[in-house]
């Protein structure tokens, strides 16, 4: 392990390597001389972006108001309405930018953008492209503008102007570790953009085991507000109890039938179940769906099967073209969608509901700490919409504004004391002989957070139990974490972040005394629009604890709220029995 450390300087540092990161870096380069993008693995082979086929299509002027309303409604009315408006107004220009950067969208014979529909959002909202080509094209373009791309460096902490956590100053850079050589790297920069994506529990879901919410954790430690942590995507893409893929949304369309062991299309017994797709009308569709599947299994009518035998050849061809990794997995497992029923099981796997939760940002994409910007899934827009679209629009704003902020300030001089302290703490696990491995930490945490009674169906008692165990792990196990090499050292920093993020997830879930979208509380099986059109924000309190802030959702010019502020019962309700 090298003892000295490397210092790299830039005006803007972008942490991450996906859609939001590349969008931010490309835009930052319009205003700043030195833009560095630092990715933990390899750009174009990391994170969720390469698997995405859905992008934002330009919105015609006469559809603006309707689209904003749809976005807000689909966000469970928690969307930041200014961001919904920004999305609707700017996605067209950004989509054209993507084409200028070399991205190839699906077009029809006349050369017009092929537009697709996305559940509940109405037709023509979505444009299609192959994720791997999108990211590779954007990465190439970023390189061509002079963005410096650093790979295989895991950024672990932010540098603050006053050397404190939480800071009362601003962000002056970050530190990280080369995942292969173990060299400590100091990034001295005038502005930092966090675009690190969602939070994976390393449960082998949607190929995101390396996307571990490091950005959320380091921003929280530095004192930024984080929000929406009670929401996490509900996942049912676990197939035949043996393998997992992304693209589960595709299984909701094309004539799929969802049946239980008795062959019943059980979803229709619930109010609001859609006749057009597998899911619920006009709402975030995955939470209800996962709960409905879980209930069938819990009540002895499982397994639950996705019957895709009615899929057209066109649909299968589209899957092969735009979701090849999904098809590769099915092919390798010998599953033929046209002949075989596919068993689906809900299983938690990632946290942070994409653009619904993350680091709180204003419309400059600026966090609550100056010099720190955030975009993409790591930022909180309150609305999920078409994730890659929001990542693109948000990233672009983050990069431009970060670069403008950087223009008016000098580099901080006093970073080396903090950097040395961070390096010492970071390398400690290498010296521990008898300790706890990062894998064991992940196992201990997942053991308590993955059961359905701790994830899909929550209850105050069980949340408190989970919090108790997470805090025990933080207190007793984390100080003993050991690592044998740089690869494991990176996992140690990820494990530390995971423990923190699971505490935040459960604190927020405890606070929201209602059910909404993917968050379900047995004691409050209804959505309470009179009392809970609110954000739950979490912040480092400076004493090793978490401060909670509850704020009404900012409504902006559109001021879109539900028609009735009454309690609306959740269609799928269940009470887990104690073992």
């Amino acid at each position, binding site marked *: 392990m090298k003892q000295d450390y490397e210092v790299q300087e830039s005006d803007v540092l972008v942490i991450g390597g996906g859609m939001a990161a590349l969008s931010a870096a490309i835009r930052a380069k319009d205003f700043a001389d030195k833009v560095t993008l630092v990715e933990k693995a*390899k750009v174009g*082979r990391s994170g969720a972006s390469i698997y995405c086929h859905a992008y934002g299509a330009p919105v015609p002027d006469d559809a603006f108001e309707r689209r904003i309303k749809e976005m807000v409604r689909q966000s469970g009315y928690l969307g930041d309405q200014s961001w919904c408006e920004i999305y609707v107004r700017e996605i067209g220009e950004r989509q054209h930018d993507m084409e200028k950067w070399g991205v190839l969208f699906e077009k029809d014979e006349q050369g017009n953008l092929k537009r697709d529909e996305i559940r509940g959002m109405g037709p023509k909202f979505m444009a299609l492209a192959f994720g791997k080509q999108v990211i590779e094209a954007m990465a190439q373009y970023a390189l061509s503008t002079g963005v410096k791309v650093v790979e295989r460096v895991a950024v672990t902490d932010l540098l603050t102007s006053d050397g404190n956590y939480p800071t009362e100053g601003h962000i002056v850079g970050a530190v990280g570790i080369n995942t292969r050589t173990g060299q400590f790297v100091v990034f001295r920069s005038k502005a930092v953009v966090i675009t690190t994506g969602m939070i994976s529990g390393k449960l082998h879901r949607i190929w995101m*085991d*390396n996307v571990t919410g490091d950005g959320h954790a380091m921003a929280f430690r530095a004192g930024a507000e984080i929000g929406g942590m009670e929401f996490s995507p509900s996942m049912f893409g676990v197939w035949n109890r043996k393998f997992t893929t992304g693209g589960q949304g595709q299984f909701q369309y094309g004539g799929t039938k969802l049946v239980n062991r008795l062959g019943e299309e059980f979803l229709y017994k619930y109010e609001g179940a859609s006749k057009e797709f597998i899911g619920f009308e006009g709402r975030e569709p995955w939470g209800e769906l996962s709960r409905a599947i879980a209930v069938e299994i819990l009540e002895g009518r499982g397994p639950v099967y996705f019957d895709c035998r009615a899929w057209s050849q066109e649909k299968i061809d589209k899957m092969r073209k735009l979701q090849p990794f999904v098809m590769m997995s099915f092919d390798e497992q010998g599953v033929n969608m046209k002949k075989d029923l596919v068993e689906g099981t809900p299983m938690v796997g990632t946290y942070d509901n994409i653009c619904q939760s993350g680091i709180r940002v204003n419309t400059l994409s600026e966090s609550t700490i100056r010099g720190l910007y955030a975009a993409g899934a790591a930022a909180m827009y309150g609305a999920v919409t078409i994730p890659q679209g929001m990542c693109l629009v948000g990233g672009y704003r983050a990069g431009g504004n970060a670069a403008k902020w950087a223009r008016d300030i000098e580099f901080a001089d006093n970073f080396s004391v903090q950097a040395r302290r961070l390096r010492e703490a970071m390398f400690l696990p290498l010296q521990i002989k008898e300790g706890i491995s990062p894998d064991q930490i992940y196992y201990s945490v997942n053991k308590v957070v993955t059961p359905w009674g701790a994830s899909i169906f929550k209850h105050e008692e069980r949340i408190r139990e989970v919090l108790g165990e997470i805090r025990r792990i933080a207190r007793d196990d984390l100080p003993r974490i050991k690592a044998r090499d740089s690869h494991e050292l990176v996992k140690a920093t990820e494990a530390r972040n995971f423990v923190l993020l699971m505490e935040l997830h459960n604190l927020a879930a405890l606070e929201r005394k209602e059910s909404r979208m993917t968050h379900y509380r047995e004691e409050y099986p209804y959505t309470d629009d009179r009392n809970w059109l609110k954000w739950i924000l979490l912040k480092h309190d400076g004493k090793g604890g978490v401060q909670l802030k509850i704020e009404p959702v900012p409504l902006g010019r559109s001021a879109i709220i539900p028609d009735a502020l009454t309690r609306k019962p959740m269609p799928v309700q269940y009470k887990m029995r104690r073992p």
Partner: protein
Amino acid sequence: MTIERIAKDICEACGLRTGVGCPIMESCSVDVIRLDERGFPYIAYPDDCDSCFLCHLDCPNGAVKVSAEIPLPFLARY
């Protein structure tokens, strides 16, 4: 299970020959692949593989066999 095999008889140790790097070591997002003393890739951290198939796709010689089947220790716990 997960990444199963890098066929030594098919692998051409691209990293050594071209000086650009072994494509599968480059592409692994969970950094599972390392090079041995002779410059051939091997599966250094098999438990971290999450069956993304990128190594299978990126090896220009088709030397990598990946199985989609993956350990799911926390499946359906209720």
